[in-house]
Structures are given as structure tokens and as C-alpha cells.
């Protein structure tokens, strides 16, 4: 490991894991197990609870389809959702750079309030710090959340033939951020998919027993997240290219830029691993609840090389490697 923090230490990939295991876990002991989960689940006398935290440093702060505030609340709600939890309380901490526009802060606070209201959760505690000009990038937000875990959701061991569902079209958040951050002069109406997914737990109440794992494909997109899952469960993941929902505009923009949308973040989508043969049932339930673009995108294979690949329409099985660092070309 290098002796200075590099940007890639925050990309959620191998380097982030290296940093966590070599710096944090060493001192935190067994509290933080290395698992796939974004939330910690624990049981008190009264209930089974989930607890999570996340920091948001997105640029730009306002983007098509959302802002940092909405993202911060949704991110935490979604992390609780992955644990099968219905969120109840949220905390919010702000690190604001001197000179930041109060009107902007107001807008951000407002959208946070709206998301909370819409989803029946409350921001109950928080903190505000101001740092000198030059010491922050406008605004950073940290949120944490606590939720009650549904008894019906019992994550269980993934086996070959278990099915993989995505609840909607992919890569819209990542693409929206790209477009807004760099003003790429592309005419499109792509907006971020940023939204709260906690209703999944109630919507899928009847189906929860067949869901083995939920994971929101944020940093690194579905390819990266599925690679993590493949390594963790020890089987290959086979995706069907034609089944992966992606809106044509998102595909078009990324084609031009040479970016693979399978590696771009979603902020309002969930990957579900469903017990074999129950994929259709869960998919049907999702469609009824309005997840019109949800699709069964693949399944776990029996081979144990822990690779993720895409069954392409020309017939080959193209590998989707876990990418380390910036995407640099591989062709010689």
C-alpha cells in the first residue's frame, strides 16, 4: 500500500477494501466484520434493528434529478433497505465551507425534508460544522439511520441457479452526474435515478422469504457489486446482456464516451438475489408495485471461479472483471 491516500482509496473497489482492512479493521476489532452488508443488524429485547452510516461528497451538489441532500437521505434509507429494515430515524451532519450560499443550503435542507416526509422517516439529530474556505468542497453531508428489520427477511446462503433481479434501468445516476459535472453539451433528458427504496420492504412483504440478498449497486455499478457478491459466495454470475434494462439515451452517451454503463452508479435501484424458481414471482410483484423496468438479469452458475460474465447476443460470454482504479485500456 502507498503511504498517502489516493483518490482510488475511495472508489469502493479493491483499494478501498485494502484501506479498510489494513487501517481500520486492525484497530476496530470484530465490530466491523468484513461482510457484504452496508448495515449492521442487531437484536434488542424489543426488536431486530439495523444501523448504517454514509458520507456524501458528490459534485455537483445540484444535479439533474436531485441534489446532495436527497442523495444523502436516499442513500441511508437504501442501505437500511438492503438489511430488510424499515427506517425510523435518521441523523444528518453537515460540514460546510465558509462562504457557502445559505439559499443553496436551504434548498438542500428542503429536499431532505421532502424525502423524509414522503417516506415516513424523521431526521432526529444532527450536527453542523463550518470549515475555512479552501478546506472543503462546498458541502459534505453525513447521514446515519436506524430501522426495524422485517422478520420475514432472512438473508440466506446463495446457491447456483438463484436468480438476480434489478428493480429498474441502470446507470442513470452515474450518467447524470457525468453530464452535469462536465457540461458535455449533450442534449438528453437523462436524470438521476436517485430515490428511496424503503417501500420495497412493504411492497415485497409476501416475497421477502424468497429473497436471499439485497444490494444497492451504487459505486462501481452492477458489475462491481456483482463481482463482490461472486467473490463472497464463491460462484460465477451469468448475466444476460439483452435483459439488462438500460434506457437508450444512457447507452448512447456512454457509447460515445467509451464508458461501460455496467460500471456506473445507480442511486435508486436494488439488486435482488432470489431463490431459484421464484424470480418470476418476485418480478411480478415488483411490476405490480410500479417497478415497470424491473428485470431478471441473470443467475448464479455452478462454476466456482467467482467470475462475472455477460451472455452477449452474438453468443459469447464476455467477462466483466472487477476493475481496479481508473478504467484504462486493456487492448494492446
Amino acid at each position: 500500500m502507498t503511504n498517502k491516500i489516493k483518490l482510488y482509496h475511495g472508489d469502493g473497489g479493491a483499494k478501498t477494501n485494502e484501506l479498510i482492512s489494513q487501517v481500520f479493521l486492525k484497530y476496530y476489532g470484530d465490530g466491523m466484520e468484513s461482510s457484504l452488508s452496508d448495515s449492521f443488524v442487531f437484536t434488542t429485547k424489543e426488536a431486530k434493528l439495523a444501523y448504517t452510516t454514509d458520507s456524501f461528497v458528490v459534485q455537483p451538489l445540484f444535479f439533474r434529478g436531485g441534489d446532495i441532500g436527497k442523495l444523502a437521505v436516499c442513500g441511508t434509507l437504501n442501505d437500511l433497505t438492503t438489511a430488510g429494515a424499515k427506517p425510523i430515524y435518521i441523523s444528518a451532519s453537515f460540514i460546510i465551507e465558509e462562504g457557502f450560499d445559505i439559499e443553496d443550503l436551504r434548498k438542500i435542507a428542503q429536499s431532505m425534508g421532502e424525502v423524509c416526509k414522503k417516506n415516513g422517516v424523521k431526521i432526529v439529530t444532527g450536527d453542523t460544522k463550518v470549515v475555512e474556505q479552501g478546506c472543503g468542497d462546498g458541502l459534505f453531508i453525513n447521514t446515519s439511520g436506524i430501522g426495524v428489520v422485517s422478520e420475514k427477511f432472512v438473508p440466506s446462503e446463495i446457491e447456483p441457479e438463484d436468480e438476480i433481479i434489478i428493480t429498474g434501468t441502470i446507470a442513470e445516476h452515474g450518467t447524470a452526474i457525468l453530464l452535469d459535472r462536465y457540461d458535455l453539451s449533450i442534449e438528453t433528458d437523462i436524470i438521476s435515478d436517485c430515490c428511496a427504496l424503503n417501500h420495497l420492504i412493504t411492497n415485497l412483504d409476501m416475497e421477502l422469504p424468497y429473497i436471499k440478498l439485497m444490494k444497492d449497486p451504487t459505486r462501481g455499478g452492477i458489475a462491481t457489486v456483482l463481482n463482490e457478491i461472486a467473490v463472497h459466495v464463491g460462484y460465477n454470475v451469468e448475466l444476460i446482456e439483452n435483459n439488462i434494462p438500460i434506457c437508450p439515451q444512457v447507452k448512447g452517451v456512454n457509447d460515445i464516451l467509451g464508458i461501460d454503463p455496467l460500471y456506473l452508479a445507480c442511486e435508486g435501484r436494488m439488486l435482488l438475489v432470489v431463490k431459484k424458481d421464484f424470480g418470476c414471482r418476485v418480478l411480478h410483484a415488483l411490476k405490480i408495485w410500479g417497478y415497470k423496468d424491473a428485470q431478471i438479469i441473470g443467475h448464479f452458475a455452478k462454476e466456482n471461479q467467482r467470475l462475472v460474465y455477460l451472455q452477449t447476443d452474438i453468443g459469447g460470454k464476455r467477462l466483466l472483471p472487477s476493475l481496479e482504479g481508473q478504467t484504462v485500456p486493456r487492448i494492446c
Partner: protein
Amino acid sequence: MSNFLSYLIHIRGIVQGVGMRPYIYKTAKAFRLTGFVKNKGSSVEIVISGEQWAIDGFLYELTSNPPPNATIYDISVTPHTKAHFRDFKILHSSQNQQMQDSILPDLAVCEECMEDIRNRQDRRFEYAFTNCTNCGPRYSILKDLPYDRENTSMHCFSMCPQCREEYKNPQDRRFHAQPNCCPVCGPKYSLGNCMGEPMECESPVEKTKQLLKEGKIIAIKGIGGYHLVCNAQDEAAIATLRTRKKRPHKPFAIMAAVVEDVLEICTVSPKEKETLANNQRPIVLLNKKGNALLPEIIAPRLHQYGVMLPYTPLHYFLFEDSLKYLIMTSGNISGMSICYKDEDALTQLSEVADYFLIHNREIMTPIDDSVIRVLGEDVLISRCGRGYAPMSLPLDTPFEILALGGNQKASVCFLHHKRAHISQYLGELNFLDACNEYISVINRLGCLLNANPKFFAHDLHPNFFSTQYGKTLGKKSIAVQHHHAHMAGCMAEHEFCGVGIGIIFDGTGMGTDGTIWGGEFLVGSRGEFKRVGHLECVTLQGADSAIEAPWKCALSYLHTMNENIELYLPNIDKQQLQVIKKALQNNVNCYQSSSMGRFFDCVAALTLHRSQISYEAQAAIELESMVDAAITEEYDFSISETEGGFILRYQSILKGVLEDLKNQQPVSVISAKFHNTISRATVVCACHIREKFNLNSIFLSGGVFENSYLLKNIVFGLTRSDFQVFYNRKVPLNDGGLCFGQGAAAASILEG
């Protein structure tokens, strides 16, 4: 009898499956020696007893006149105690697996066997699986060593009495020819429809010929896999093959019945002729003659054909006067690896081939045809496949290493018992099937060699499948920088152990600074290196997409030079140009690169308006094909010395290209001037480096040197400036040779 002496002799090398034991038997008999010979692992062990003069004579004969296909690495002779034998015998192979160090590649059918096949009286008349100790399949049917029939896919065909007779008779050409067989006891061809369902026909071969003449595409199972075959003079059939195979432009290989037919379509030097006809029967890249005997779509926009001669009896049967040239291309879907298992072929090729000509001998390892080019008297391997692989080269190190190669043109190399064993070309590791094949070749070759590597050498690129696979193998992995591996491989091939200058021009290689290298001047040895110069870096946008769409390279260059992009890329959508420009300004999906391959892509895109490629390096290959060799002019260039070494600036070169474009100079002139400039600049840069570092040996490697015009020019220029110049010949100088270089570098690094 007191003056009788006895010796134990060990011969290491390619000594099995080449008629070594019958040869030794005959020679020993001739000198009236007694004792025995046997295969031991992959070496041959001899005990002989007789008078000193006879033993001397025997040894002299053995070293100066071994069988034609044998390669002897070394012979050890030690005194032996037991001196009395009644006779000279060939003993059964010992199962001792200690000295596995050579595997014989597959050989083309020999002239003597062809005589049998053509002879109506012979029991092998028109038999497609005829072979003898001097010819036939080896590596492709091998499951394990020693090379005995039980260890090949011939084991399920039990020999008929007549074949067994030949097999057991030391005087016979087929003595211990492991795949020996005949129409009575051996494998057979059968013809099936596109579903593989067998068809009633008297002679599958005659029917196949008829179908070829009708313009049909036939999948034919051969030595190392399936070929897709059609009549090379039938433009419609070839066009159909292109569509079905999803391979719009990549040149197809041609098979011609005899050298005379090759002479009608290509110019062939004596060395090229010799290479075409050797018993490895590679595809040889030959300059086209300017006639229209064959349709342009075989190798569109190129100045060369890849041509080979028949190498199995079946191939010979396929030709006749009205069927003189056949397209013989690997049986696969574009981008994927060659089919060699019947089930895979039937599923993958059912929509490509109209019929299947199949045989019932299993192929144990897939192996593509080799590709060779001849440069003057030098024979250069571009793709190491059938006939050449596995290749064994000396590499003196005590370490057991498995080098994993790169991502494209994958191949692996085992360092084992002081030799390097290089696998066949394994294609691109972007698809699951190719990766599985890659892993099984590693396992199979490792098992054949009885190698148990303790160290793994791999590329620096973290996202290569080979790198990621290497990391799962064990902790003792050694990362070797891509271009250092190219240089070390060139040094090792020439058994050079000192310090020299490496000039490595290729497409993409991860540098030690996280940027993409590819136009590199290195100084160093096999074990270490320093980057002392390079092509000026440019910011390229779009990762792999910039490689598939060379106009993006051109745009990236023009952007940094503030040139009018739309003027020079008139055929690209204006909005797309704007987007990429913005992306370049904002560093979206951009990387820094000093790649020479991308510089060629840039110039090719500007001159040929080739905006999208369908096979690797297509634009650059087409640019080379355009060169007017009569043009000796060049563009201005500058080299500046900086802290980062000598920088070859691209600006003035590109300015010259743009100027010529404005003046509507023909592409052939621009291409020649560009090639000349790169050659000159390379030589000038090399001279600067010589002055500064006082080194005179130069090692050229990297895929850009597949460009023969460039390689010839640079070699000529460097030689004229009194450099000692080396380049790869036996090992591909493209990424197919990367594994060998990684192994050489890793061995030196371990030796410290």
C-alpha cells in the same frame, strides 16, 4: 571380451515421436553394439556396450546425424558397470516422470506417407489419418507423457494386426509411431449437415468437394480444431462466410494445393518457399501479386495474403483443377477461441457452416495454425501455434516459474529444468470460454512437463484476466512491466545477459507511473530497466473505445495541437466530435499515453478515414499496406532531452501530415513519409541514448514491429549507425511473446 566398454547415455531434447529409438537401434546394430534404448520421461536413455572405436563411431553418428525432426539439447555419457548384453533391444518406456522437458509439436504429413496414400496398391490408399514416426499429430492428441499411445487420444483405437506388426518392427517406418493406424482400425471422417446429423454419402470427401464447388461453407475438423472452409475463388461464398462469422474485414488465410499455385497469386522468395513447405506448415504472409485471380474481399485493402500448404492427407484430397485455392479460417465466432470439441463446434458453428466434415479422433488441446513472416533470411513467428508449439528455448535459471502473459494473444510460459516452454497462442482473454481454455492449457502443459512452479510472473495491469488469475495462484507472484517483459524476452531469446537498449513500440502496456506506455526507449537488463525516452504523451479519451475507433485517437492528438478537428475528420458526426472534445477538456474517461500504436492509429484515421476497426490494428495495417516504398522523404521531427528522458515530439510530425493532407498528397506518399520519419527519429533517439549511456546493443520488440516496413527500415538505419540490433524471431514480438519475457525477467529478478 575384456576390451568391451559400457556406457549409459541420456539424450535430452525433442527426442520422442521422431523415430529416435529405431534410429538408435539401427545405428547401434550397424556398429555391432549391444544394450538397449528406451524412452524415459521425455528423454531417451541408452545403454551400449562394445569396443571403444564402435562406441565413438556411434556417438559421432548420433550427434552429427540425428533423425530430421529431432532436436538434441544435450547428451550425457557416463561409464556403466554392466557390460554384457546378448543383443540390442528397444525396451518399454519407463513411467519415470522426472525429466519431462520436451513435447513434440504436430507435424505435417511426410512425403513417404503421401506416397502410400497415393498408391492404389497400398492399404492406406486415400486414408486421411496416415502417419509415421516422421509425421502426424503429436501435441494436439497428447494427454500425458511419455509419448505413448495410451497417453494420446488414439488409445481408444486398438491397432489391427497389420498395424501392430509395423508398430513392433524396429525396421519399419511406423515402429512406435504412436498414432499409427489404417482404414481398418483407425479414425474416420464423416459428413453431417448443419445440425451435425450424419448424411448418407459414398465418399464424404468427394461430397465435400462437390459442396465446396457449389459455394457452400464446410466446418472441417482438423488437427488442432475446426476450420471453416470455402472456395477461395467464390466471392459470394466468402462474403457469406464474412457475414455469418461476423468478421467484415479481417483477412482470411488461404490454402493452396502446391507451391506452384501460390506463385500465381503471390511473390515468393526462396526462404518463403522453404518456410511454406517445411513440415510445420505455417501460414506465411506473402506479398500479393497485382492480379485479380482471387477476390479482393479475402484480404481487403491489404498488400499481403496469409497462405499455407496442405498439412494433413485430407487437405490434399480437397483440391483439384477446379478447386485450386481454399479459404481456411479458424472455426470460431469472431473474437472467440477456436472450436475443437465436437459439441462446441456444432452449437457455435451451426449458423456459420452449411455442413460439417467431422472425424472421431478427439483433439486434446486446441491449437491454431501458426503465422510466420519472412524478413530477408529471417523467419519471424507472429503466432505460435500448430507445428511450433509448445516451443522450447534454453533459459538457464534454477527457478521454476509460470509466466502468465498478457490479455490479448494470450500464451503462457513454464520455466522448467533450465528451459522455457511456451504454449500455443490462446487468443483474447475477454471471454469465459477462452479463459477456461487458458486455465486448462496451463494445467495440461504443467502436467505434461511435470512442472510445479513456485513463482508466477504477470503483467502490471490489474484488470487483465491473467493478472487476476495469477493472484489466485499463490503469494509468490512477480509483476513485470509490460515493455520490460518485451525487452527481456528479446534479450533472452538471443541469450544476451548484459545491459542494452530496448526499443519497444506497441499498443498498450501499463507503465510504472500509471500511464499507458507504448513508444518506449528503455535501458536495462533482463532483471531491471529504466525508461530513458518515449514518444511524447498525449491525452486520449475513451479507454478501449479509442482503440476500436481510431478517429478518437486522431481527435485527441488534434485537440492538444489546437487544430481544426472538423476539417480533418469530415466523416465523423460533428456532435460526437464536440462531446469528445469536451470530455478531453474535462478529463472524462481519459488517460495519458505514449503509445506508438495509437500514433499510427491517429495517422491512419486522418489519411484513410478509417473510423471504426473490426480487427486488431486494422487501421495501422492498412496504413502500412499503402506505403509507396519509392518515397524517401520524411517529415520534420524533434527530440528533446528532459528529466523524463528523451522525448520524441509528435507535433511537427503531425503538422507535416496535416500539411500534406491539405495539399491532397496521395495516402501512399503520406504513409511512406510517416513511416520514414518514425524510422529516422528512432535511429536518432537511439544515437542520443548510446552517447549518454555508452551502450551499443539494441533490442526491438512490441506489436508495432509486426509492421515489416517499419521494422526493416529501423533495423537498416540502426545497423548503418553501427548498432548491434536484435529482434524476436522464435518468440512473437507481439504480446504472444510476453509470457516468455515475463519469465526471463522474473528469473533474473529472483536471481537478484
